[in-house]
């Protein structure tokens, strides 16, 4: 079982937590072929480009799950929910809380639906360690207060317990 990445998005479309277990591939063939605008001006080394790609991915994933969810609700009715999609290389699992927070996990394609696990991460880790933390703000702009030690450790323990490598 391979786990690629995990993201939490709040209801303001912002990514408040992200975690990756594999480095992003350096560049796919389609990316090198395309000229990047302003790359000559802002080339400050690898660190900045990697960081920008990360946030780019987060935005792409949010836009994607948002559009897929809307498409599914249009086709299947208001009470239809988006569960997951699979490509030839990876599978994306999706869980949305009643407060419109979105939990997204990318794994390999052989994984069954991880929605119950995402629900548990929300109920047992996020609510316990982030929402009930008196020092954390109500909203988490920029991810403040989410990636605290308890949450990180709980997430690690949970993942090694339920998703053995």
């Amino acid at each position, binding site marked *: 079982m*391979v786990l*690629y*990445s995990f993201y939490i998005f709040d209801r303001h479309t912002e990514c408040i937590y992200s975690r990756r277990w*594999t480095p*992003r*591939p350096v560049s*796919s*063939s*389609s990316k090198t072929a395309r000229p990047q605008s302003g790359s000559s001006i802002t080339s400050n080394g690898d660190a900045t480009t990697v960081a920008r790609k990360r946030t780019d*991915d987060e935005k*792409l*994933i949010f*836009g*994607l799950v948002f*559009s*897929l969810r809307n*498409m*599914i609700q*249009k*086709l*299947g*009715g208001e*009470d*239809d*929910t*988006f*569960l*997951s*999609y*699979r*490509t*030839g*290389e*990876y599978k*994306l699992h999706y869980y949305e809380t009643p407060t419109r927070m979105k939990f997204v996990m*990318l794994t390999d394609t052989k994984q069954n*639906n991880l929605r119950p696990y995402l629900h548990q991460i929300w109920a047992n880790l996020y609510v316990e360690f982030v929402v009930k933390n008196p020092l954390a703000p109500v909203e988490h702009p920029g991810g403040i207060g989410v990636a605290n030690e308890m949450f990180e450790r709980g997430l690690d323990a949970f993942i090694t317990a339920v998703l053995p490598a």
Partner: protein
Amino acid sequence: MVVFALFIISKAGGLIYNREFHTGMNKLSSNDLLMLAGSFHGMHAITKQLCPAPPTPTNPASTAAALAPSPFSNRPSGLEVLESSHFRMQCFQTLTGTKFLLFTEPQQPNIDSMMRKIYELYSDFVMKNPFYTVEMPIRCEKFDRGLDGFVKVRG
């Protein structure tokens, strides 16, 4: 077994065929369907971009692959199966970029073979039709009838 609908999206992202076999999904106006097809075309491209691990070349040492690098080899495939609580959508993209979307019940076996059969019908009755212009909406009676026969027999 229930097959809800079949959409065919051209390589430019236009909806060129839509057919409902069984009620169960929302009725949408043709404008809405066109919009959905266009946005799905974009989402499909994004799912390719998001690929966290590049596909490994199937046979890197083979001489044939080294001599004639195919543009189709080890390119990440886009979205293939989309699951929701009410339906399951299988997307099959041909090498030329045409996409077939098949909407079925969530627990539907053998969608791959159905997809092959539909692609076969498409090749036989649409692509071989001398009056059909590529990338244009599909109006071929034989294709319609073939699909009807196929889906009804299976159902």
